[in-house]
């Protein structure tokens, strides 16, 4: 028996959230007295795969089929199911991404396994149980869930654990493939269109997020958000009305009905802090709020706050951020 981790690539490198999943997989393997194998699909540099040894991965099964450079759910499921069978994997680990959760859900059916998404802790395995903690009620609570099937499938919430350096040298990379037929490609994307990701930082992967609300008055003032984000190496986000007003694209909208983010640092500028907004950002480690209204509800959820006009305050922050030595 072993632990299998699915790692996702982005621009040939391994996503930060997948390095977290690899760390998780290795730590579970240690708990269970076994080893962790990774499986990678599509366009990922082989040296990046070998470096997974740093997270404790001993072997990587790599399917380099170029048809899988884009996400083809049924094909990915077939490849990972075959890897799970070959490795006799009893625990499968994914990151809680749109891809990871989709593949994990389908595998739960195919492998007759128990699935937990949005997982924030390593399992408690005493007494033969397997209990993990999940983030539920849109970040307002946690639930402890016992996974009762023989096969356990876990999608790890982003930024829930630190990437570890187990330092066990390079992982061996083995070529791997499954017999794919046309059936796996009936719902293959016709096209995959990547956005211009603000300075290369993906919102869902970002360690720092700078977010703007209606208090910024209009799209013409977004240079404040963008310049601060650039100075800090952050991704940009916005509140729902800002996306609804078309000041910013919808994929930047965070909150209960938008994207949920959990960066180390979330900076909210001119956002009131409505409960639905908080639901998407409340698991950020440190929250900074800049608002001209001292009564804005967001201050109650913040770690640091500045009461002031964004148009005065943010330029000062940009200046101070630029002056930081990297």
């Amino acid at each position, binding site marked *: 028996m072993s632990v299998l981790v699915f790692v996702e690539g*982005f621009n040939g490198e391994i996503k930060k959230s997948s390095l977290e999943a690899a760390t998780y997989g290795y730590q579970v393997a240690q708990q269970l007295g076994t080893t962790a194998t990774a499986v990678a699909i599509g366009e990922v540099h082989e040296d990046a795969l070998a470096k997974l040894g740093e997270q404790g991965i001993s072997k990587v099964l790599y399917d380099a089929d170029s048809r899988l450079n*884009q*996400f083809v759910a049924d094909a990915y*499921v077939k490849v990972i199911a075959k890897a799970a069978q070959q490795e006799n994997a009893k625990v499968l680990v994914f990151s*809680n991404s*749109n891809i990871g*959760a*989709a593949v*994990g*859900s*389908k595998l*739960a*059916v*195919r492998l007759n396994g128990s*699935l937990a*998404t*949005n997982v924030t802790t390593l399992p408690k395995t005493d007494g033969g149980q397997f209990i993990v*903690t999940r983030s*539920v*009620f*849109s970040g*307002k*609570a946690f*639930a*402890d*869930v*016992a*996974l*009762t*099937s023989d096969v356990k499938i876990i999608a790890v919430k982003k930024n829930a654990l630190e990437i570890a350096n187990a330092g066990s040298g390079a992982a061996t990379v083995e070529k791997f493939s499954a017999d794919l037929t046309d059936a796996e490609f*009936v*719902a293959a*994307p016709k096209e*995959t*269109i990547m*956005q211009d*990701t603000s300075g290369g930082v*993906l919102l*869902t992967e970002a360690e720092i997020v700078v977010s703007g609300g209606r208090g910024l008055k209009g799209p013409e003032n977004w240079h404040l958000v963008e310049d601060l984000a650039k100075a800090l190496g952050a991704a940009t986000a916005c509140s729902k009305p800002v996306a609804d007003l078309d000041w910013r694209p919808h*994929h930047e*909208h965070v909150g209960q*009905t938008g994207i949920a983010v959990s960066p180390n*640092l979330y900076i909210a500028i001119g956002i009131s802090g409505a*409960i*639905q907004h908080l*639901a998407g950002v409340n698991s950020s480690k*440190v929250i900074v709020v800049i608002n001209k209204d001292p009564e804005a509800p967001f*201050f109650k*959820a913040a*770690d*640091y*706050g*500045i*009461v*002031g*006009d964004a148009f005065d*305050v943010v330029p000062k*922050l940009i200046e*101070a951020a630029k002056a*930081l030595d990297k």
Partner: protein
Amino acid sequence: MKILVCISNVPDTTSKINFSGDNKSFDKNGVQFVINPWDEYALTRAIELKEAKGGTVTVLNVGEADAEPNIRKALAIGADDAIRVNAHPKDAYFVAQQIAAIAKQNNYDIILMGKESIDYNGFQVHNMVGEMLGIPSITPAFKLDLVDDSTARLEREIEGGKEVVEVKLPFVASAQQPMSEPRIPNMRGIMTARTKPLQVVEPVAGEAKADYVSYSKPEKKSGVKMIDAENAGELISLLRNEAKVL
């Protein structure tokens, strides 16, 4: 065109979340339940497609009788009929099994859901149902159009971009904004909803694979540290030296 829309009955977005004294169950006291917000995008898009192409929209909930006010609300918004599988929805796998069983009996062309429930945040029922039925599941989609009577074109969000997918019917998709603009029921809708059929069926044998043991709440923040707007730059050094996040 026969469309099935699966709706989940969830605490209103403004709810304070509390648990029973032993932390073993969710405390429904004083909580207002609504149609899961993501499911409203699915429901409205289904109604728009019906209005454009003809057909029927059926809503389905796996849950107990207390979900009926929201099922009626979906009928008031414009669905034609409803099915409630009379069961306590124990976990996502159990719910998916029930939905798949209903789908097998009725040959829907499109099965629409929300991206995820805002209570258990699973993001999984749609993909499980697709897999159980052996049909594609495209999730989360923010655009859904029919190319012709047998083909749909969807745009699906992936991290950092989007995919354009064309699939033959039938398929499963889950909705997120801006797929549609959710509607508020009007008086006429509310009146007609009372007489639309709501069929209550017993569950098929199903199995839960996750057992919810207990709940807890996040630690409260220790309080906010305020920085004077005049010295705003000081925030940056606090973030580096005190919070250690820069």
